[in-house]
């Protein structure tokens, strides 16, 4: 029973590892390749280490396996974030079909700035009218 569980876990993990490598080779862009390598690779290794711990079935091996899995799941997002930040800040060329969705942000910002301008115009007009009042009072 445990042998078949170990076999299924290991083969599933190997499949995820192969998919991660294939995605790293075939996808068009650094940031898109990172999707394949980080997530699928980490999941594949986690499944394989889990299968190994099921096979040995001792507390020492289970401790080591949990250490490896927790460490990988903690460090893979940190490393991927660091690589992506470095690539983005250095201005690495993206895929030509990548869409940068700045339009929605710009639209909401322009609406906000328009409403701010309409609010800011009121004190200015009041100031002008106030200076007019001052001038009339001087006269």
């Amino acid at each position, binding site marked *: 029973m445990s*042998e*078949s569980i*170990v*076999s*299924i876990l*290991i*083969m599933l*993990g*190997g*499949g995820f*590892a*192969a*998919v*991660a*490598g*294939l995605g*790293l*080779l075939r996808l068009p862009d*650094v940031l898109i*390749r*990172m999707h394949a*390598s*980080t997530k699928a*690779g*980490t999941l*594949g*290794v986690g499944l*394989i*280490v889990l*299968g*190994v711990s099921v*096979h*040995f079935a*001792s507390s*020492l*091996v289970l401790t*080591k*396996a949990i*250490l*490896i899995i927790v*460490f*990988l799941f903690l*460090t*893979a997002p*940190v*490393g*991927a974030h*660091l*690589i992506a*930040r*470095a*690539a983005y*800040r*250095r*201005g*690495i*060329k993206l895929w030509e079909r990548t869409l940068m969705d700045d339009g929605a942000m710009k639209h909401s910002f322009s609406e906000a700035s328009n409403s701010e301008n309409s609010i800011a115009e009121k004190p200015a007009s009041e100031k002008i009218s106030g200076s007019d009042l001052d001038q009339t009072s001087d006269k």
Partner: protein
Amino acid sequence: MINLEFAVNIALGLTIFGLTTGCIRMFKGPTPADRIVALDLVTVLLVAVSSLLALQLDNSAYLDLGLALALVGFLATVGFARYLEKNTQMPLDDADLARKQDDGKSDNATRERL
């Protein structure tokens, strides 16, 4: 019931396929960021290979090798990523490298002229 030896061989083959594609991307990668991503994947897959070796050779000491490899691989990834981010002189691909070399040549030429 699946034979365990067969499953370990299949998993080792699939993992080594992933390692091979990662190495191809590391040699081919047009930008340094591609090579860093490939290095990250290769270290993670080497942890998988050492775990599978623990299963095949029936020796749980190979899991320690995997743990140490995961630690060192994370440090390597962080170090290379920070190096890529801080070193603004590093060329980003082949066209960038050629442009920088041309700039260096023209700088040398103007310096000689002066």
